[in-house]
């Protein structure tokens, strides 16, 4: 573990928000389905648990992660810690190694949250049928991997933008980018495909994060993605992740 990883982890542990979120997520996922009108249809309850867990993960936990990455970036640049870390590293690939160190840091809470959601979904809403239960676990695992490939590079981007501009700007930029890809691009895509070349270009270059939202498959028990399709999704998001990381390395600035 590098200096930045250790520093980030001890900071969030001292702040304790991460513990609150990791513990609060399963509790809320069990409480929220009580609002669902399930008196006449009790079978609504269990999928609603999984659904609540994944909604909270995508919105609340990602929101917190981007915010935390952004404020960390600004703080480290302000108190000169990045300059110190920069000078400690050997001369080759310094920026890359600093970025990698902090990325590992951001991925730890992300993995913690996603593991909590996975447990909630599997313990709270496992189908009774043996075969269906297997499919349910595979589907949840697929969801976990897609979540991590999208969220971790975005957190790094938030960190890098904050080192150059500020945490406010960084958080707004990253969450707008994420929200655009997750909620709006899906509405836009069918229209853009049939529109003019600039529209088609926007459709090609815009982030299609909504593809990673497998909640529909969970709620309506549609089974996991076929393996080849899942590999393509993962490849697409890994590609986006690499592009995002490249931009982050370009934007990153250690000096005050």
């Amino acid at each position, binding site marked *: 573990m590098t200096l930045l990883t250790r520093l980030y982890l001890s900071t969030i542990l001292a702040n304790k928000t991460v513990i609150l979120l990791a513990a609060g997520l399963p509790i809320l996922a069990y409480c929220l389905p009580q609002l669902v009108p399930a008196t006449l249809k009790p079978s609504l309850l269990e999928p609603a648990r999984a659904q609540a867990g994944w909604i909270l993960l995508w919105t609340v936990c990602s929101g917190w992660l981007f915010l935390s990455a952004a404020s960390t970036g600004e703080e480290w640049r302000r108190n000169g810690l990045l300059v110190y870390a920069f000078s400690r590293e050997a001369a080759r690939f310094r920026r890359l190694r600093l970025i990698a160190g902090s990325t590992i840091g951001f991925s730890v809470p992300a993995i913690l949250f996603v593991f909590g959601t996975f447990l909630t979904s599997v313990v709270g809403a496992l189908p009774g049928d043996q075969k269906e239960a297997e499919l349910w676990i595979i589907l949840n695992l697929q969801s976990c991997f897609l979540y991590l490939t999208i969220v971790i590079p975005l957190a790094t981007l938030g960190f890098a933008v904050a080192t150059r501009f500020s945490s406010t700007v960084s958080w*707004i930029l990253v969450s707008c980018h994420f929200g655009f890809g997750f909620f709006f691009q899906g509405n836009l895509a069918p229209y853009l495909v049939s529109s003019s070349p600039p529209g088609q270009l926007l459709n090609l270059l815009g982030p299609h994060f909504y593809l990673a939202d497998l909640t529909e498959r969970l709620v309506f028990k549609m089974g996991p993605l076929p393996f080849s399709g899942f590999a393509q999704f993962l490849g697409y998001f890994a590609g986006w992740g690499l592009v995002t990381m490249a931009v982050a390395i370009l934007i990153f600035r250690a000096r005050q």
Partner: protein
Amino acid sequence: MKRQDLAQGTLIVCFFFLGWTLVIKNVPASSTATNWPGHNPFAIRGSGYGKMLSRFSEKDVDRAWHIGLEGSGHSDSYTWQGRYRLLKSTRNSSVPLSASHLQHIRNDIRRKLYQAFLLDPTNYTTYDALHFFLTAMSDIPEETLFSEIAATAFLVWEVAAREEEDPEPWLTAAVAMMNLDLEFNNAPVPSLSKPEIHHRIKDALRSFDRLRNDSLADGRWSELSDQRRAEIETRRNFLGKYAERL
């Protein structure tokens, strides 16, 4: 947080929402009765939370109907909060609405009714409000109007007629078929004959009775509030009377 950061942040948010408003205004609606559920983030439409949100909007839909369309009071004007809400949304101007403003309001109500309906097509109240709005208040040309009425009714049937646990959606399915029967009195319904529609209405009521008896037997029915049970019974009796005449 410095002032400069706030300014930069505000600028980004403004750009984002301004751009997005422009885009939304120029892009057709993503989900309609024909391609339901469409783009559905977090699978809200059709899930338990969709049902919940649809229930929450029942009151607003009802109020919009009574205040905006009939221009009269409404059952919840008996409580003081109800009276105040009525007061808050009652028009008080001697100048009549211009034609374009009226058109704007109609489109707005239509959009909201569609939103509530698409969250849970099996909700009786929101479906009924949408149907009556389309037939009575909208100024859609006749050909498109009939295809929209048919599309909403078919969607209700498609979603509700799969139900094997909850009796309520079957009443919505029955009322959707009844609406088709009434609206297409002279013109033939696309893809369904009159006897088929009548058969579907009776079939839906039979399924409702069967599922209600199941829920009576295992005690789920008695967990409903008295008011809700009475509401469901009223609907059942109304539809039963209609079915008897067929």
